[in-house]
């Protein structure tokens, strides 16, 4: 298409008749191209507040659309549709339907933080991406991303025992993401570990896997952390207009 502006119009809004003659003038094909006007009627005026209520999204209101984030973004360099600047714009205007068109790529942020480094207004766009991905999950538009699942496995274990045990984290993570435990790279890594590690260290690791030791006196800390996490989760669900029942203190 020689006219680049055409690429900016969604295909469903471009119409042309293959065979059309009006008043004796043949306007078949692209001569009859008609662009359907785009009318946006559904705004979610709370969208900015919703994103701002999630960790990382607090400073979205500072954005003045300079595009530093998008220009610094390595994911954008590979996929021009990955555009943090544009999503911040949509969120601030409350254009939820528009945002949802990109729901399958928003979570692809690699958290390199280049955008946060270049942003002249300290919007922390990486945080906004995180908050937006989180929002998509809480609203049920996206299944939980692998990185969220990993965070959950990781923190659940810390909450339960006050410690982390890498072997168990990997096992649980694979289970939750439906991956087989026997993966070539993992087998290879364990083989090399077995051949290279001192016996004493291996025994300590083996015992830790079997008996799952806890940090001494962890109970009160665990209770406090869990209370705080529930409180925060309930707060976020409320801010998003979702049912805030679980652990809700009101």
């Amino acid at each position: 298409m020689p006219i680049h502006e055409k690429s900016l119009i969604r295909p469903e809004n471009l119409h042309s008749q293959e065979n059309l003659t009006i008043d004796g003038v043949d306007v078949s094909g692209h001569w009859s191209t008609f662009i359907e006007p785009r009318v946006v009627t559904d705004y979610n005026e709370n969208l900015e507040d919703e994103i701002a209520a999630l960790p990382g999204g607090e400073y979205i209101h500072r954005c003045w659309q300079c595009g530093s984030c998008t220009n610094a973004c390595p994911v954008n360099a590979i996929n021009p549709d990955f555009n943090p600047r544009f999503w911040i714009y949509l969120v601030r205007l409350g254009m939820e339907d528009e945002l949802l068109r990109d729901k399958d790529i928003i979570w692809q942020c690699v958290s390199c933080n280049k955008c946060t480094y270049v942003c002249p207004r300290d919007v922390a766009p990486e945080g906004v991406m995180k908050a937006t991905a989180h929002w998509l999950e809480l609203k049920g538009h996206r299944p939980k991303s692998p990185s969220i699942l990993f965070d959950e496995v990781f923190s659940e274990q810390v909450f339960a025992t006050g410690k982390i045990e890498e072997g168990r984290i990997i096992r649980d993570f694979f289970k939750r993401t439906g991956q087989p435990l026997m993966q070539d790279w993992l087998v290879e890594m364990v083989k090399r570990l077995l051949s290279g590690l001192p016996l004493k260290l291996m025994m300590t690791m083996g015992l830790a896997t079997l008996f799952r030791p806890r940090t001494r006196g962890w109970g009160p800390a665990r209770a406090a952390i869990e209370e705080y996490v529930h409180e925060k989760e309930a707060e976020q669900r409320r801010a998003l207009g979702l049912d805030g029942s679980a652990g809700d203190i009101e």
Partner: protein
Amino acid sequence: MSKPVLVLGGGPAGLSAAHALAGIGRKVLLVDKEDRLGGAPIHSGYAKLVPSGEWAKDAIGAMVDRVTGREPIEVRTSTTVKAFEGAPGAFTVTLADDSRHEVDSAILCTGFTHFDSVNKPEWGFGTFPDVVTTTQVEQMISSGQGVRCPSDGRRPKRVAILLCVGSRDRQIGREWCSKVCCTVSCNLAMEIREELPDCHVYIYYMDIRTYGLHEDAYYWRSQEEFKVKYIKARIAEVTSDGHKLIVKGEDTLVKRPITIPFDLVVHAIGMDPNVDNLLLASIFDVKLEKHGHIERASVYSAMGATSRPGIFVAGAATGPETIDDSIAQGQAAAMAALAQVQGAPVAAE
């Protein structure tokens, strides 16, 4: 005859204050750290000024001429103030050569310092020779050499001007708009197009702030008559393919990525507080405002007053300022200093 008024700094504001005071027969001690008067427009080699279009060396040069060798004005160049004590009407100023002078008030016209672009390393200044500042382009024009690429002296075919370099940027603690760079950049873009009609000029902006009467004369005119291209985008970094500078940006208005090779990239550098402001603040015992400029005691009631009675301020010492406003403020501060000597109440404190 009464004691002189100390005017510190011989730029537009200082020259204007000194001229105003001398005009009604007051003595003036005009001190400048440089070896000649004129301030930034002369020492940084500005080309044609906004909005008159006159060459800086003619316009500001004329201001220098009218205070040089004039009876009530004593000009002391290449010197600084070492100490300043006393009370309004009876201050003693000690210069770097230990000479002491009685003055009855002081006007600080100490101006600003250009932002140093090496503080924005991702935009290539100091890394690539063809990344320059607006000041350097001004010098290329005012020297008569013309706009050329410093690396090999060739005529650029494509020039990018990046706005807000050292302004409006929390990352580097410059939380102010430097006020003049948009208009200056529009002006330079037109100068470049006039000298090199085959050269394409792009301006990357966050907002265009050609306020007041500069809107049509600079912003519109550069677009309509000179076909300067404006891209609403802040670029992430300037790189090089070994021959040309590569500027990657997104045209945020149409949501399209654009990577353009450039021959010359120009940083529209902002105005920092004068690097000597902390020293000046301690010598003169005046307060600085939160960005580091000299604080004005009042916006409405006492023009040019500082936090210390008897000491006044004018021009870019108070924050980014245009040349014509600096000149107006110089006269206003002169008036305030005179009124104070006549016993008028001072609003400071």
